[in-house]
C-alpha cells in the first residue's frame, strides 16, 4: 500500500512539473516559428538533452537492453555508433549546415527543408506523406512500451494506460509546442542520465567491480543455450559468429540500421534548426556525447550483466528466469519479506532442454527479453532504485513520444495540408495534425501484436534512411543534386525498403504474410544470409546510386536558387 502511495506521489510530482514546464513553453510560443523550431534560440544544453532524450526511448533501454541480455555485449558497437555518427558527425557535419540552410530558406520542418532546398512543394508533400504514414507506427511502439510499464507500475488496465499516457503527452505537445517539448525533455534527460548512471554503478557494485563483473560474464560462456549457440552466440562478451543469423541481426539491423539511420530521422534533424549559431551545436556535442554513452551504454551493459546476477542467485540465465512466472512471483515475494533467494534457487531448478530448435521455437522456449531489465531492477537493486528507474523509463517514453507526435503533427498539418491549402502560417493545422497523429497512434497501440517494439523501431529507422538520407546529404553538400534525382532517390529508396520488408527480410515478411500468400513461403530467397540482411543495407545504396546517377543526367537547379540556399556557406562545385 505504501508502495502504491509513493509511486502515485512520484507520478503526481511528475505531472505537476511537466505541466509547469509546458505552460512556460506556451507562454513563450507566439508564432509558427516558435511552435515548430522553438524560435531558433534554444540553449545548447536544452537542445542536446532534447535530442538525446528524443533518441533514447523505452525501446533502447528495455527493448535493446533485453536484447543485450540475450545476445551479449557485441551490442556495445551501437552506442559507439550513436555517439560517433548520431552526435559528433550529426551535429558537426549535418547540424551546422542544416541550421544555416534552414535559416536561409526559412524552413521550419524537415519536409519543408527538403522541399525548399530542391524548390519543389510536391517533394515537401511526398516527404511529409512518408513521415505521416510511418511515424505513427514508431509512435505506437513507444506508446506500447510506456503503457505496458504503467500497466505494471500502477496496476491499471492496458487500454487505460495507452489512452491516458497518450492524452497526457498529446496535451503538453499541443499546449507547449516545440519549446514546451524541449523544456520537458531537458528535465527528463537529467532524470534519465542520473537514473541510468545509478543503475550501472549499482550493478557493478553488486557484481564485484568493473573488470571482475565482465570476467564473470565471460566465464559463463558454457551456459549459453544450445539454440542461441546454433544461431551464432559465442558467449555474452564476444561478438556472434561471423555470418551467423545473430551476426547479421546485430550488425545489419541494429548497429548499421539504427546507428546510421539516426542521421535521417526527421524529429531529430529539426532540432538542429532550433539553435542560434554553430557555437551552440559545438557545446551540444559535449553534452550529447555524455548523455548517449551513459544512457544507452548503461542499459546494454546491465542487460548483459544481469545474466551473472541471475545465474548466481537462481542458477539460470536472464532470459530463462523471466520465462518462469512462478519463480518471478516467488522472488518478488522473497525480496519483499527480506528473505534470501537461496530457497528459491533450490525450488526452481532449471529445466535445460538441449534439443536444437528453430528461431521461432526458441522464442517459445525462452522468456520475453523485454522483461529482463525490469526484472533485474526489481530483484537485484534497492527499492529506491526501482522508483528512480520508474521515473527514468517514463521520461524515456515521454520524451521520444512527444518528439514523434510533434513531428507527425507538423508533417500532416503544416507540411501536407498547409502546403495544399496555402496556409503554412497557421499553428491550427499543425495542432490538428498532432491530434490526428495521436488518434492513429493510439489505435495502432491497441491493434499491434506483442514483441513489436524493437522491430517497429528498426523498420522506421530503415525507411527514413533509405528514402531520405542520400537526398539530405545531397541537400547539405552537393550543389549538383537535381530535383529529378531526389524524386528518384526518395521513391526508389522507399519502394526498395518496402519490397525488402514484404518479400526478403524474414523478420517482417513472415509477419506481413503477403509473400506467403503469393508464393507459399515466408521470403523469396531463403538461402543464408538473405533472410537476415536488413532492408536498409540493400535500399540505401540503391537510393544513393539513383541520386548520383540521375543528378549527373539531369539539369541542375538555377544558380540563383543554389546561391540563396548556400548563402554564407563554403561550397565546392562538382
Amino acid at each position, binding site marked *: 500500500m505504501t508502495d502504491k502511495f509513493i509511486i502515485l506521489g512520484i507520478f503526481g510530482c511528475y505531472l505537476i512539473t511537466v505541466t509547469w514546464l509546458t505552460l512556460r513553453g506556451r507562454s513563450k510560443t507566439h508564432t509558427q516559428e516558435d511552435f515548430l523550431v522553438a524560435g531558433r534560440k534554444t540553449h545548447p544544453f536544452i537542445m542536446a538533452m532534447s535530442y538525446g532524450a528524443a533518441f533514447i526511448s523505452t525501446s533502447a533501454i528495455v527493448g535493446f537492453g533485453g536484447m543485450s541480455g540475450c545476445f*551479449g*555485449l*557485441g551490442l*556495445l*558497437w551501437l*552506442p*559507439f555508433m550513436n*555517439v*560517433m555518427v548520431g*552526435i*559528433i558527425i550529426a551535429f*558537426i557535419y549535418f547540424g*551546422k549546415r542544416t541550421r*544555416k540552410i534552414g535559416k536561409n530558406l526559412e524552413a521550419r520542418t524537415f519536409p519543408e527543408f527538403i522541399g525548399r532546398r530542391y524548390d519543389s512543394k510536391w517533394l515537401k508533400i511526398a516527404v511529409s506523406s512518408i513521415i505521416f504514414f510511418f511515424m505513427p507506427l514508431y509512435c505506437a511502439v513507444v506508446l506500447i512500451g510506456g503503457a505496458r510499464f504503467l500497466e505494471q507500475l500502477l496496476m491499471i488496465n492496458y487500454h487505460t494506460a495507452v489512452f491516458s499516457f497518450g492524452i497526457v503527452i498529446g496535451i503538453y505537445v499541443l499546449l507547449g509546442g516545440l519549446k514546451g517539448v524541449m523544456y520537458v525533455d531537458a528535465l527528463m534527460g537529467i532524470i534519465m542520465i542520473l537514473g541510468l548512471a545509478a543503475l550501472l554503478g549499482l550493478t557493478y557494485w553488486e557484481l564485484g567491480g*568493473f*573488470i*571482475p*563483473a*565482465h*570476467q564473470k*560474464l*565471460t566465464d559463463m*560462456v558454457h551456459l549459453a543455450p544450445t539454440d542461441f549457440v546454433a544461431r551464432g552466440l*559465442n*558467449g*555474452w*562478451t*564476444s*561478438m556472434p559468429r561471423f555470418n551467423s543469423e545473430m551476426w547479421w541481426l546485430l550488425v545489419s539491423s541494429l548497429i548499421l540500421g539504427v546507428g546510421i539511420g539516426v542521421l535521417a530521422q526527421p524529429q531529430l534533424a529539426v532540432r538542429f534548426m532550433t539553435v542560434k*549559431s*554553430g*557555437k551552440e551545436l*559545438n*557545446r*551540444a*556535442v*559535449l*553534452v*550529447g*556525447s*555524455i548523455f548517449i*554513452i551513459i544512457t544507452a*551504454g548503461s542499459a546494454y551493459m546491465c542487460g548483459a550483466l544481469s545474466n551473472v546476477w541471475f545465474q548466481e542467485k537462481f542458477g539460470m540465465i536472464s532470459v530463462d528466469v523471466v520465462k518462469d512466472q512462478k519463480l518471478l512471483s516467488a522472488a518478488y515475494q522473497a525480496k519483499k519479506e527480506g528473505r534470501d533467494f537461496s530457497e528459491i534457487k533450490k525450488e526452481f531448478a532449471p529445466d535445460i532442454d538441449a534439443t536444437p530448435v528453430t528461431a521461432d521455437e526458441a522464442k517459445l522456449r525462452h522468456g520475453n527479453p523485454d522483461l529482463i531489465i525490469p526484472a533485474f531492477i526489481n530483484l537485484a537493486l534497492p527499492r529506491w532504485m526501482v522508483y528512480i528507474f520508474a521515473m527514468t523509463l517514463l521520461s524515456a517514453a515521454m520524451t521520444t513520444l512527444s518528439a514523434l507526435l510533434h513531428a507527425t503533427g507538423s508533417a500532416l498539418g503544416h507540411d501536407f495540408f498547409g502546403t495544399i491549402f496555402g496556409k503554412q502560417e497557421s499553428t491550427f493545422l499543425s495542432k490538428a495534425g498532432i491530434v490526428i497523429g495521436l488518434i492513429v497512434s493510439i489505435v495502432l497501440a491497441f491493434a499491434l501484436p506483442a514483441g513489436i517494439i524493437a522491430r517497429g523501431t528498426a523498420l522506421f529507422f530503415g525507411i527514413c534512411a533509405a528514402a531520405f538520407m542520400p537526398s539530405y546529404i545531397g541537400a547539405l553538400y552537393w550543389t549538383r543534386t537535381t530535383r529529378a534525382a531526389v524524386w528518384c532517390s526518395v521513391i526508389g529508396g522507399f519502394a526498395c525498403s518496402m519490397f525488402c520488408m514484404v518479400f526478403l527480410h524474414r523478420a517482417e515478411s513472415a509477419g506481413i504474410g503477403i509473400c506467403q500468400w503469393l508464393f507459399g513461403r515466408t521470403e523469396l530467397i531463403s538461402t543464408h544470409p538473405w533472410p537476415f540482411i536488413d532492408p536498409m543495407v540493400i535500399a540505401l545504396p540503391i537510393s544513393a546510386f539513383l541520386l548520383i546517377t540521375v543528378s549527373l543526367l539531369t539539369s541542375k537547379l538555377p544558380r540563383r536558387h543554389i546561391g540563396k540556399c548556400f548563402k*554564407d556557406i563554403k561550397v565546392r562545385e562538382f
Partner: protein
Amino acid sequence: MWLKLGMGDWFTALALWGNIIAMLIGIIYGAIHWNRDNDQRNAEK
C-alpha cells in the same frame, strides 16, 4: 590482460574502449570549440 577489460574477445573489448574514447572525443571537441562560431569568423573576415 587488463586492456581486454574482462571481455571474451578483442572486438568486444574494442567496442567498450570505443565507447569511452567516443565520449572523450565529444567532450574534447565540445570543450575546444565551446566559444567558436564559424559564422562569426566569416563575418569578421
